[in-house]
């Protein structure tokens, strides 16, 4: 089971469509159409992990793919939790 945290240089906030990520290194944005499936940590407490809201199996797979994409972009960091 993986847990995802924001990278130290990443910011994220909740929007109607999902999450809006911001990379402080480049000032670029990434729009993620995740709806309510993915919840960003509070702005003032970025150390907390992103929360995946359980839905259908298909939704869960889609969110996992999104998180892997964000990890590849350096916006989130995955850690194995047991």
């Amino acid at each position, binding site marked *: 089971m993986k847990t995802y945290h924001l990278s130290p240089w990443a910011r994220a906030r909740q929007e109607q469509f999902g999450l809006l990520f911001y990379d402080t290194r480049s*000032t670029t944005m990434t729009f993620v159409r995740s709806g309510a499936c993915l919840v960003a940590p509070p702005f003032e407490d970025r150390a907390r992990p992103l929360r995946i809201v359980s839905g259908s199996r298909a939704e869960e797979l889609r969110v996992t793919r999104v998180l892997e994409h964000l990890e590849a972009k350096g916006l989130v960091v995955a850690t194995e939790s047991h």
Partner: protein
Amino acid sequence: MPQSLTSARLRAPVNVTWEITDRCNLGCRHCLSADLRRGSRGELDRARCEALIDELAAMQVFQINFGGGEPFLRPDFLDILRYAQAKGIVTCVSTNGTLLTPALADELVGLELLFLQVSLDGARPETNDAIRGAGTFERIIEGVSLLARRSFPDLSLNMVVTSTNFHEIGDFHLLAGRYGARTRLSRFRPSGDGSRMWEQYRLSREQLAWLSEFLGEHAEILTGDSFFSLTNADRRNQGLRSCGAARMTCAVGPDGSVFPCAFLCEPAFLAGNVADDSLASIFEHAPIMEVLRELEVEPCQTCDRFSLCNGGCPAVAYFVTESLGLPDPECLRVAIPRTEVA
């Protein structure tokens, strides 16, 4: 990035341009803030500045673009920068570079979440000085050198592209590189004193077309405000759109007055003042913000590039045509056949 999301209504700006002082030690001929500064009713004091930063953090605004006037004329500006950075907000400072000293450069190198943009309007002294004032080229380069010697990491040199410095774009790019700085090319807009220099400084159609090609070939060059007629697919894919006013951005004047964007700081576009109301409420509810968000440039809607540029910059359209609903007058499609710009 799906286009529909870039035009989605956001619950807060992504960045806020904050003209934090009405004081300036230069008198640049195309100053876009000139009218705003002349009409300003003083500056927010430090406590009010910190309160506004608290609110921006609560709104989850990612970035503040500080300008002026010249921000470093405020004795408390470094403290304000540090306060914003402590909240995790990225700070981008637009400065004329003439007030940089070794001591100030040492301080700036020690700050995090800081991008510095130094304005320089030509690759040669005579070109820059004709716009920014006699002797400024040398003073600006001295300031840039101080930062370069300290390997300041996030430095850019910004040139507002006009008919008088257009021919130096290539040399300007080389000059920036010599100081380890990125090149930023900004569009000249007829805002503030720019409106009085519009006919003299505006680019010709041929120059605009050349610039579009140049930017398309140089993805490393920053263009904070879009030259919306870009022809290069990579630039398009960066999601450049012509206007983020009242959607992704808004502007705050020295006295706390709020506008839809830094290029629309005329009284007609005043949305409110942070001394009277919260920025969140002004951004969400001010009628002029809604006007900008709902703006539809009807003559452009049949164009195949409409989804990319959405009609261009309303500020340029407004100041040239006195209408918000008309196409950006600098759209290349207006004068050049599609086959030449597609």
